């Protein structure tokens, strides 16, 4: 049985990189007695894959990993057992069964992600009070943002492992708007097209001539293409699973 775990990563855990979060969950599975399945061979390892790596320094309330179970456990028990053994800055939101076929794995499905961007020094308050009345960015950024997005194309240099090439990032920005709590955006994510929020913001800050502004990045959700319809275009990875009620 395959299961998708959604978790949050915040506070000091933002200094723990992707590989170490994987190690953290491997150990957490054992501490929490989750009946996870192993591969065979001399050095068996847990069957576990993360949907979308999160960069160092970034916080998130919508991270995902898929695991395979070798035994039974209910969603409620699993979430409780895992949260009893988490650390300060990481907790499990849900533990849901998903379809078994490989094409439904988180890693293959990822299509988009939501981000909230706030000024670096307001990281904690901004993330705590989502509905703050006082806007965290200057008002004139509203118009600038509209103009920024109206450009027919936004060419930037994108670094890959081997080279640097110029790409148009505009089609990969699905949504970008200001709210009092910060800049919200939905960007292409996953193996096909992937756009990092810091690349968008660097380009935007250059556009408004405020390159010295320091920002904090917070991921809100990771999405898959809606398998059933075009509207909505995306559904959260979590919504593709269902709670295990009894075993």
């Amino acid at each position: 049985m395959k299961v998708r775990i959604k978790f949050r990563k915040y506070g000091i855990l933002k200094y723990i990189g992707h590989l170490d979060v994987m190690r953290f969950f491997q150990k957490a599975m054992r501490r929490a007695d989750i009946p996870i399945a192993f591969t065979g061979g001399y050095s068996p390892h847990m069957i576990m894959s993360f949907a979308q790596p999160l960069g160092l320094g970034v916080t998130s309330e919508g991270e995902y990993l898929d695991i395979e179970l070798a035994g039974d456990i209910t969603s409620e028990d699993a979430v409780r057992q895992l949260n009893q053994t988490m650390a300060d800055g990481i907790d499990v939101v849900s533990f849901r069964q998903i379809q078994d076929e490989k094409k439904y794995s988180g890693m293959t499905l990822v299509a988009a992600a939501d981000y909230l961007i706030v000024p670096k020094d307001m990281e904690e308050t901004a993330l705590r009070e989502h509905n703050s009345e006082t806007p965290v960015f200057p008002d004139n950024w509203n118009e600038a943002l509209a103009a920024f997005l109206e450009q027919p194309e936004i060419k930037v240099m994108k670094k890959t492992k081997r080279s640097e090439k110029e790409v148009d990032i505009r089609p990969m920005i699905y949504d970008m708007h200001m709210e009092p709590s910060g800049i919200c955006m939905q960007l292409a994510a996953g193996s096909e097209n992937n756009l990092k929020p810091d690349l968008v913001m660097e380009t935007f800050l250059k556009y408004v001539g405020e390159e010295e502004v320091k920002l904090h990045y917070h991921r809100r959700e990771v999405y898959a293409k809606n398998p059933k319809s075009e509207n909505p275009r995306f559904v959260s990875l979590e919504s593709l699973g269902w709670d295990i009620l009894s075993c």
Partner: protein
Amino acid sequence: MRKLALSDEILMKIEKPARYIGGEVNAVTKKLDDIDVRFAMCFPDVYEIGMSHLGIQILYDMFNRRDDVWCERVYSPWVDLDKVMREEKIPLFALESQDPVRDFDFLGITIQYEMCYTNILQVLDLACIPLHAKDRTEKDPIVIGGGPCAYNPEPIAEFFDMFYIGEGETVYDELLDTYKENKKNGGSRMDFLAKACQIDGIYVPMFYDVTYHEDGTIDQFFPVNKHAPSVIHKQVVMDVTNTTYPQAPIVPYIKVTQDRVVLEVQRGCIRGCRFCQAGMLYRPTRERDVETLKQYAYNMLKNTGHEEISLSSLSTSDYSELKELVTFLIDNFKNKGINISLPSLRIDAFSLDVMSQVQDIRKSSLTFAPEAGSQRMRNVINKGLTEEDIISGAGQAFEGGWNKVKLYFMLGLPTETEEDMEAIAVLADKVARRYYEIPKDQRNGKCQITASSSFFIPKPFTPFQWAPMLNHEDYIERAAIVKHAFLNQLNKKSLRYNWHDAEVSVLEGVFARGDRKIASVIEEAYRMGCIYDSWSEQFDNDKWMRAFDNTGIEIGFYNLRERGEDEVFPWDFIDIGVTKKFLRREWDRAMKGEVTPNCRMQCSGCGVAKWKGGVCIESKN
């Protein structure tokens, strides 16, 4: 979010910020209002090394069991952060509370190897604590040292308020209670030191003075405080089963050197190798009850979630319940995806069987530590491993499918001749010959025999404490002789030889048997920028040599002399239970090439039987 000592900007620009944020699973947090004593426990090396050390985990757990004490951890900031902290004047902090170490009651430093001495100064300096004990005030923490290097504390004596000599489980409670009592009564720092020095095993260096002969050797070492005893007795836990053991050790976020559950199966060693300091310091051999260890294994795996468990002790093959324990671990944990990591065991049918169960034969290698190439030399060092043991052990392993062997040796041992050096290559070749005796169609390609040598360093409290070392050039020459001998072997294409650098060995030699005068070189080298000397990419021998020049300390005095039978050693005031008379007897036997039987075969009267426990009473039954 928990308060952090370092800003986001710093944490995002340094390597591995997880080294400095604390908050790991099983780390202990307490409220300041609930406690009386703040203890900062330091391993003066980088986080990944310090977190791998069992001793600190034992003390951390033991201290934090007390409601009135909060023990936190401190490690050396890596060189990147070291630079930032100096530039921005950020005081060194403890991981749990992120509070400055200088606000603590104690700073405990475990001293595991000599090459960390400059890191001790780094820690004190970054913590804004005066380097010299005599310059500290009522505001400063009590700086206490412990661990194997504390058995000759003299080279670093002036940097410490006190040393704890021996195993931590015995008198720390008394020391902490004394501290609390003194604080409550409004006593001063000096009042506390005067009380502490009366506790068994506590050495307060400033209460002692040394006079020297004209030739630089010690004339007298004596207490100058009326409360200070003239001899300090090593502390030992005789019942290692019913003592504290950390069953929920801290689980680091980042991969550390020892990323696994560690079961300490016994303390001490029955073997009596004459070069080995640990073998003498931790006498008598005391075993932990196997049923207790099984329970620990279960609890620790559950509480940490580690995917590997290993056994720890000197000469683990001598643990009498080894078979029982290893079989239990395999039966209970292997099918749960837990790796059983074995220490290097004596090769026999049992160890080969368990090794084939827990590791991939094609990838793993066998390890032997003959320490010397010739039988003559092995008799001198009392290493009971014979050529026959090695060849037959390797043979059994080769038949079982292994084809990689590692051999460890020492160069520069007392009485070593050119023939002894060449014997290293000859022995490696014999192992390879044994491999090629197996018919071609039954063996697994070529074999790979890797021999490594390090340079012998005489250590205090060993039978070789009187022995001379060599200088740097002589060491390199000896390695060259061995290298040359390897080229003359039949199976040279299957043999590899590498040797450790000699520069660090020379320094280690000075520090290991140094006296109080050495402190000035360590301080000078630190002032010149030396830290992390145990890291080859950080080690700067030129700076060290200049530090010796600047302070007028002669390396030759410490390393090149054979010490006289009656010489007073800087560490003579410490009583480890093993007598100097026994050590001298062993030195004489070594010179005659006579072997001394191990503690289970026969008692050799080393002195530790006075504790009436462990192997000393077991062998009398």
